[in-house]
């Protein structure tokens, strides 16, 4: 069926609603994380059980994207037509009969359900609870089958596009986005409406809109979740953007490492085209818009917009100096909008509910919500979408469930390799673009890596610089050579070969790289060094002056030694991966330091605290 007018769309939705079964849904999270944790066999077993028990009239198994509770995958959500829902985590096949038998009204005997604190501002009143997730970009992720456009249509899908095309002028579209105050979620936080106005103001002719799905920050996966869980939201937003700036072609630049997201996007484009929601003469308005996929090939710098454009042109993905901005001269020299996936995913909601609604969420300077990917030493690894202005403490300790194994919080790294670390004393900061910058960190894409007391900050800085050196494209000297030298200095300090001058050298070199690099990669790459130097000078000094790694991480400076509490049980010797522990039964054992790889397995397995780390 081709949807030719907004009333066709309304009719189609009414038809879908009429056919709605009212069955209890069994949602199985099948994003990359869910599949890796074994979600597919669970979904298959669930289907088999429902069929074998003849329960098809009551239950329906739905494959959905990621709900963000990655810490308890595989998971099953039992959701009744009246909205009641129960979420079971770490599900095994044996638990399936009990879960299905209990339905959505009561918790299956002997099992626990996961508490959720998610609220959807488009559909619900804000709950009284103090700390809640506020989901706009992730509104459909984990709720609908991403491979069925009908599911999206039932969630008000393509209504925003219908409204924009039939009731608004392009200038009004840009203006509404300016009024909403949406800022880019891909890193820099540039106002999206302004960017669209720039491109719209360029003379008529070929223009492009590009979705940046390169998600290069290692440890951030929100864009992947959106693409795998709600691909149509991105397509709809791109079409709205195309109309606003006068572009008839959209491109999605996606990393080749995301095969599942690619497959779902392809399917979504096909379905939208077959309904006439992409293609020629959309909603009979004469507006044409098509979307193509372009693939990355493993280069972090290609997330930078000018580099990305060169990569689409088939060249090496090296950035160029701005201005001219892509909105003026972009892909093949034509005006081009580059927007991040999450930015785009917010846009349909803004046109459904209005600019004032969007502005009522978040802070005046940074309206709306932001998705963060929580990872590292935190209990609830996964995705949270929170209103801007929320306190870091609430994100980490309330929504994130605190630090693993009851350890002490040390820092949280926000903004990936371009960001900086935030320590315990700043946990009450209200998060927005400006406050994070003031702390020497940055919003970046929204990766939030939590580290505990067992983390060595010098080693962390070294890790990020290793990444930057790998990923620097080499076009400008400060970034190519400067970062390499920074890395070498940090490497020496971690190896116990640090000298006092290095402290000043690190700082000076960092500032030169920041000031003189060509693109955002080099301009931000020294941030991890500067922020660890500023917050943890004592750790640097301990490495340099005392040849000691306070967190006992830098292996060159530590040894594992068996003390006289050893009773000779031999457990450590059996567990040692390199067999470097010897000794006879019931006598004190000994570690051969020349073979020891300092993995710490012995210390963790010893039940008698007989192993010291010095």
């Amino acid at each position, binding site marked *: 069926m081709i949807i030719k007018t907004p009333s066709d769309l309304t009719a189609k939705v009414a038809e879908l609603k009429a056919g709605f079964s009212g069955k209890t849904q069994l949602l199985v999270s099948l994003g990359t994380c869910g599949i890796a944790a074994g979600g597919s066999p669970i979904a298959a077993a669930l289907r088999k059980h429902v069929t074998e028990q003849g329960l098809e009239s009551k239950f329906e198994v739905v494959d959905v994207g990621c709900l963000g509770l990655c810490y308890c995958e595989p998971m099953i959500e039992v959701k009744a037509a009246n909205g009641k829902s129960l979420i079971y985590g770490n599900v095994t096949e044996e638990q399936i009969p009990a879960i299905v038998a209990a339905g959505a009204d009561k918790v299956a005997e002997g099992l626990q359900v996961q508490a959720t604190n998610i609220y959807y501002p488009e559909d619900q009143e804000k709950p009284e609870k103090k700390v809640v997730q506020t989901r706009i970009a992730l509104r459909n992720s984990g709720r609908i089958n991403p491979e069925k456009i009908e599911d999206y249509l039932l969630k008000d899908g393509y209504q925003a596009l219908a409204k924009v095309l039939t009731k608004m002028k392009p200038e009004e579209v840009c203006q509404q986005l300016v009024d909403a105050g949406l800022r880019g979620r891909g890193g820099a936080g540039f106002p999206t409406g302004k960017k669209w106005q720039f491109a719209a103001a360029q003379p008529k002719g070929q223009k492009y809109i590009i979705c940046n799905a390169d998600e290069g920050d290692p440890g951030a996966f929100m864009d992947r979740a959106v693409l795998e869980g709600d691909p149509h939201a991105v397509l709809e937003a791109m079409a709205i953007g195309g109309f606003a700036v006068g572009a008839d072609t959209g491109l999605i630049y996606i990393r080749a490492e995301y095969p599942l997201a690619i497959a779902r996007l392809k399917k979504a484009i096909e379905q939208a085209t077959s309904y006439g929601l992409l293609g020629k003469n959309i909603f009979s308005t004469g507006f044409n818009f098509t979307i193509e996929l372009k693939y990355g090939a493993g*280069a972090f710098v290609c997330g930078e917009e000018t580099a990305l454009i060169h*990569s689409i042109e088939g060249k*090496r993905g090296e950035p160029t100096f701005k201005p001219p901005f892509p909105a003026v001269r972009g892909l093949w020299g034509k005006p081009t909008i580059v927007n991040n996936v999450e930015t785009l995913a917010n846009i349909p909601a803004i046109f459904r509910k209005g600019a004032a609604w969007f502005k009522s969420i978040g802070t005046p300077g940074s309206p709306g919500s932001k998705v963060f990917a929580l*990872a590292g030493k935190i209990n609830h*690894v996964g995705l949270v979408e929170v209103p801007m202005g929320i306190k870091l403490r609430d994100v980490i300790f309330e929504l994130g469930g605190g630090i693993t194994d009851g350890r002490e919080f040390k820092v949280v790294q926000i903004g990936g390799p371009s960001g900086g670390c935030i320590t315990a004393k700043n946990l009450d900061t209200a998060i927005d673009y400006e406050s994070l910058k003031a702390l020497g960190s940055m919003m970046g894409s929204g990766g939030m890596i939590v580290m505990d007391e067992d983390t060595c900050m010098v080693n962390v800085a070294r*890790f990020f610089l290793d990444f930057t050196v790998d990923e620097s494209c080499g076009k400008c000297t400060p970034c190519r050579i400067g970062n390499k030298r920074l890395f070498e200095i940090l490497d020496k300090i971690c190896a116990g070969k640090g000298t006092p001058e290095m402290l000043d050298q690190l700082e000076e070199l960092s500032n030169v790289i920041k000031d003189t690099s060509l693109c955002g990669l080099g301009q931000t790459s020294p941030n991890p060094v500067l922020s660890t130097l500023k917050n943890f000078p004592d750790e640097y000094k301990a490495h340099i002056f005392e040849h000691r790694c306070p967190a006992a991480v830098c292996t060159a400076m530590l040894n594992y030694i068996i003390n006289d509490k050893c009773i000779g049980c031999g457990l450590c010797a059996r567990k040692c991966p390199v067999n470097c522990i010897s000794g006879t039964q019931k006598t004190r054992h000994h570690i051969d330091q020349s073979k020891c790889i300092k993995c710490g397995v012995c210390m963790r397995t010893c039940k008698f605290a007989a192993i010291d780390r010095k």
Partner: protein
Amino acid sequence: MTCCCEKTESALEKLARLEPEKTAQLNAFIDTLPIGKDIESNRAHLIIALHQAQGIFGYLPSEVQQLIAERLKLTRSEIYGVISFYSYFTDKPIGRFKINVCCGTACFVKGANLVVEQFSRELNIKEGETSADGRFFLGVLRCVGACSLAPVVMVNERVYGNVTPAMVSQIIADCKD
């Protein structure tokens, strides 16, 4: 031109002789691309062509680069420039079991480097190398998106989660031809 009865074999002829099926497959894919006289627009198909070629051949030997160059009317040097820029592409054959340890930030924080070191010791190869028998390749990746299972190891398509150095020998033993 002089007569040359024993004509030497060109790179493309060699490829067609050694890998006739794969070559035909790649040519068939390139046939679907709208290649024309305009170098600029041909270039836009280079990266997808390289992806396909690597998918077919497993890597991008110089004969394959030559074929792509001729079909897209680009120079060999430009193609090599692109291959060497993107870490996804490789011009060396890699092992049948591609062991990739995730060294993204989440995995790093949970000790991925110890896992890399253990693989390196047990397989006696360094990161980025393939074992002499051509079975194992050891590489690192940046975030495979399964951070909740950190540290993560991927062997071809199979994902191992919460990997410790002690699990390494079992993972290697799981690799059966």
